[in-house]
């Protein structure tokens, strides 16, 4: 597999490492009892601790520790029973204490690895360097007043996991697949909701380029990339920018860069020389975080089935192709929906209907699968109605649309709209006869153009409002028009 980019001087390889900042699902913040509710009025979810008031002390929220351990286990990573909280010191108005409590040299989670899925069939291993806990900063608001900036501290102190990958990715596609996979694992674990719009998942992308086989190049870190799509754009732009610079005989400056989604470009934010000296040191307000192997094991026992295992089970148990199984498990909610719908129903049909009709309707209405008006139980019923011949596949699509609008049970719709399949040959014959007699020109034309048969099928279906059993219609039409007995 080759991800090489062509430049004026030959092929280039992109090297990508990613830092994901994932907001932990927890009722309260990492070191205070304040609520983490998103979208609250400015500065209403702020305790004295979050505001950095004199004499206030952080107290660790044990739920956040459990969530971090759980995520570490989900990333197949080493859990460190002894870890340390450090202070990262810098001044900014949205950082009330003047330091961020983070973990520097001894994080709660060490090396791990995950498999990412590429173009349906290929998988690739990406190594995780570490996962550490840290508190979020507040938010500066520059659009509230012509000459002042405001600060909202609702986010201040919210628990984040920073997940740092090794520089194992070599294309925008791989980077996107990695983020999707990590997000999916966390959603399975219920440790992060993965919502990039609300900022509960953010990523910084480290990009460098090199000639294949050479030493690593100088990297730039791209911040503020808040969608999977932008991540792709940012990497492609940045790689090209770096290649152009090197091929022009210049040198890459190690920089932090910002992605501008409007222009699709990255621009310099600060150089290495301007980087802060964060003066990390162990936070003397917090004792080292120590837990037992039993604690880790008790959390391991609560782990749900993760996407890779679920995918394999869907192949084995439901006879799905790896591609279909991969599609279903790529969102936990989809996988859950599938399993309910497929209980007692034809699993392949269920999969096709989810990937086809359901996704298309959900997309049109901009709904998530857990908001679908068609419940998985009702989808299963619909598929059974097709499978046992009660309705035709064609009418099933109409029924699905009605189910999506009303949320009704498919059987109710079938009964109240008289949509059962007509398989009675006598009844179909009567209609066929009527169409033949009233369309002599078409009957004649059929002798020259055999594919006009489809037109006759259509007429029968039209006459029966799609309820005629298509197989029976075909047989009768052939008997009357071709064999002419």
């Amino acid at each position, binding site marked *: 597999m080759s991800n090489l980019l062509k430049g004026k001087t030959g092929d280039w390889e992109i090297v990508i490492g990613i830092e994901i900042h994932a907001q932990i699902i927890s009722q309260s913040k990492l070191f205070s009892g304040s609520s983490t509710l998103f979208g609250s009025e400015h500065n209403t979810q702020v305790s004295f601790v979050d505001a950095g008031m*004199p*004499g206030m002390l952080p107290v*660790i929220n044990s739920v956040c520790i459990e969530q971090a351990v759980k995520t570490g286990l989900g990333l197949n990573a080493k859990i460190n029973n002894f870890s340390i909280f450090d202070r990262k010191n810098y001044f900014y108005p949205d950082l009330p204490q003047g330091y961020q409590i983070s973990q520097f040299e001894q994080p709660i989670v060490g090396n791990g690895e995950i498999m990412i899925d590429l173009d349906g069939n290929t998988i690739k291993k990406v190594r995780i360097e570490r996962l550490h806990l840290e508190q979020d900063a507040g938010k500066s608001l520059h659009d509230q007043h012509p000459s002042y900036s405001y600060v909202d501290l609702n986010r201040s102190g919210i628990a984040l996991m920073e997940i740092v990958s090794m520089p194992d990715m070599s294309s925008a596609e791989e980077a996107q697949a990695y983020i999707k996979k990590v997000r999916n694992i966390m959603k399975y674990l219920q440790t992060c909701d993965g919502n990039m719009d609300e900022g509960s998942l953010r990523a910084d992308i480290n990009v460098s380029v090199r000639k294949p086989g050479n030493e690593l190049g100088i990297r730039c870190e791209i911040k503020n990339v808040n969608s999977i799509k932008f991540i792709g754009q940012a990497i492609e732009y940045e790689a090209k920018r770096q290649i152009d610079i090197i091929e022009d005989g210049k040198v890459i400056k190690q920089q932090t860069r910002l992605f501008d989604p409007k222009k699709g470009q990255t621009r310099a934010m600060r150089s290495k020389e301007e980087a802060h000296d964060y*003066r990390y040191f162990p936070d003397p307000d917090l004792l080292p975080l120590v837990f037992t192997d039993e604690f880790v094991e008790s959390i391991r026992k609560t782990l749900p089935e993760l996407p890779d295992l679920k995918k394999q089970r869907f192949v084995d148990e439901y006879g799905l192709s790896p591609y279909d199984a991969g599609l279903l498990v790529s969102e936990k909610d989809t996988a859950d929906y599938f399993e309910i719908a497929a209980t007692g129903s034809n699993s392949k049909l269920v999969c096709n209907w989810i990937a086809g009709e359901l996704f298309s309707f959900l997309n049109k209405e901009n709904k998530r699968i857990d908001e679908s008006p068609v419940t998985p139980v009702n989808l299963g019923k619909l598929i059974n109605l097709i499978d046992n011949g009660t309705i035709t596949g064609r009418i099933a699509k109409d029924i699905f649309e009605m189910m999506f609008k009303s949320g009704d049970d498919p059987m109710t719709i079938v009964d109240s709209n008289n949509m059962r399949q007509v398989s009675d040959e006598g009844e179909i014959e009567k209609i066929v006869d009527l169409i033949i007699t009233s369309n002599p020109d078409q009957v004649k034309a059929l002798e020259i153009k055999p594919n006009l048969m489809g037109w006759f099928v259509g007429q029968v279906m039209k006459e029966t409002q799609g309820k005629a059993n298509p197989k029976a219609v075909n047989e009768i039409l052939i008997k009357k028009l071709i064999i002419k007995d």
Partner: protein
Amino acid sequence: MAKLNELCLHEARDGLKNKSFSSRELITDHIDMMESSRSLNAFITETPEIALKSADSSDEKISKNTNGPLEGLPIGVKDMFCTKGVLTTASSKMLSNFIPPYESTVTNNLWDNGAILLGKLNNDEFAMGSSNETSFYGPVINPWIKNNDKSPLVPGGSSGGSAASVAAHIGVGSLGTDTGGSIRQPAAFTGSVGLKPTYGRCSRWGIIAFASSLDQAGPITRNVKDNSILLESMCSHDLKDTTSSSKEIPNFEKAVGKSIKGLKVGIPLEFIQDGMSDEILKMWENGKEWLKKSGAEIVDVSLPHTKYALPCYYIIAPAEASSNLARYDGVRFGHSVSSDDINNMYELTRSDGFGEEVKRRIMMGTYVLSSGYYDAYYLKAQKVRSLISNDYNEVFNKVDVLLTPSTPNSAFAINEKYDDPLSMYLNDVFTVPANLAGLPAISVPSSKDKNGLPLGLQLIGKPFDEETLYSFANIIEESSSFESIDNKWWLQK
């Protein structure tokens, strides 16, 4: 009749209990004393209205027999403790307008036990200093003066107001904080009893932080028994401070008067300094004699890393302080100098809001944590700190308590050392190790020097063994027959 403020804590407590006088009467005399002692500059904020209101409520409780252990007793509080609705400045311009919307755990414990806030006491700015001269509110004057020279003396620091007020009979006791000797050194300079408890014994929640791994609240009183009573009310296991201890809180008062027979007292040889005055050496000798007479065994011991304690302290404490004081940025509370640029605003606010000593320590702390210097300074200091701790662990396998002088000298004159930070820092040489090792230590008045100024002996104990300290301190107190101030020269008519 003598003024009620002459009574010490346990006398006042017993008098109230016996209904010999009311809390209102007791408080009124203390308020009078506070107001007529303003020349000492011990208080930043006087709270007579709160005190009188609380006194009436205490009198009611006493009449109903629902009184707490400190019911109706006036206590002064160092201005490092946040007190809800009452100005709390840390003696800094930076917090000169700060009224906390919360009450520190330690003061809250006192009020729950019936104690009454008399006012907020002056200290060195952010508790950084050994003379109370770095306060934005000006120096505190030591109620003690030399026999033959009337120039004003420092009360020590940083809990200078706490020590001076107690020595001057304003309040029956006070709260201080001790990061490197800030309770014990001023206690020694004012002839008071000051204890720094084991790290974790008192909650740090609501105390303005100087150096979090060293800060500890403690009581200053006029005698050992009072000290034990006040400490007991201060302690609690506080879930809001993860470094606070869940160890059971003993009845400290019971330890006062307990025999020390058969117990071993270590004399750390490394505490004998070059150029130590004969008076200090003699005081130390007396201390040994008194303890020996009471049945204790005196043993010479070695704490080999003692000489590194002071430099180690002056790396770790400023490092933590540089980070702890970063929150004073003029954005949310406290002093603020406006500017149209955020970095400018920080610079102006912090240049104007902090005094010289605080700035000096922030600079030192920032330096030792900086990239390239961290390993050589901060990390090394942490290693030295472990070695010092180990010294004490070893020694406490052999002895029950250590006896040292509290300070290398008695109180000095205002301005004498102000421009010489190094010589000022040397004042903490005997007190700093207990903070680095997290151990309890007490300073007890033992004698007076040739100028009639108090000197103190220090006892350092095993972790969470304040009781043994009180038993020993009581012996020293009884043997020394130290007399408190008789000449109240500062009183305004």
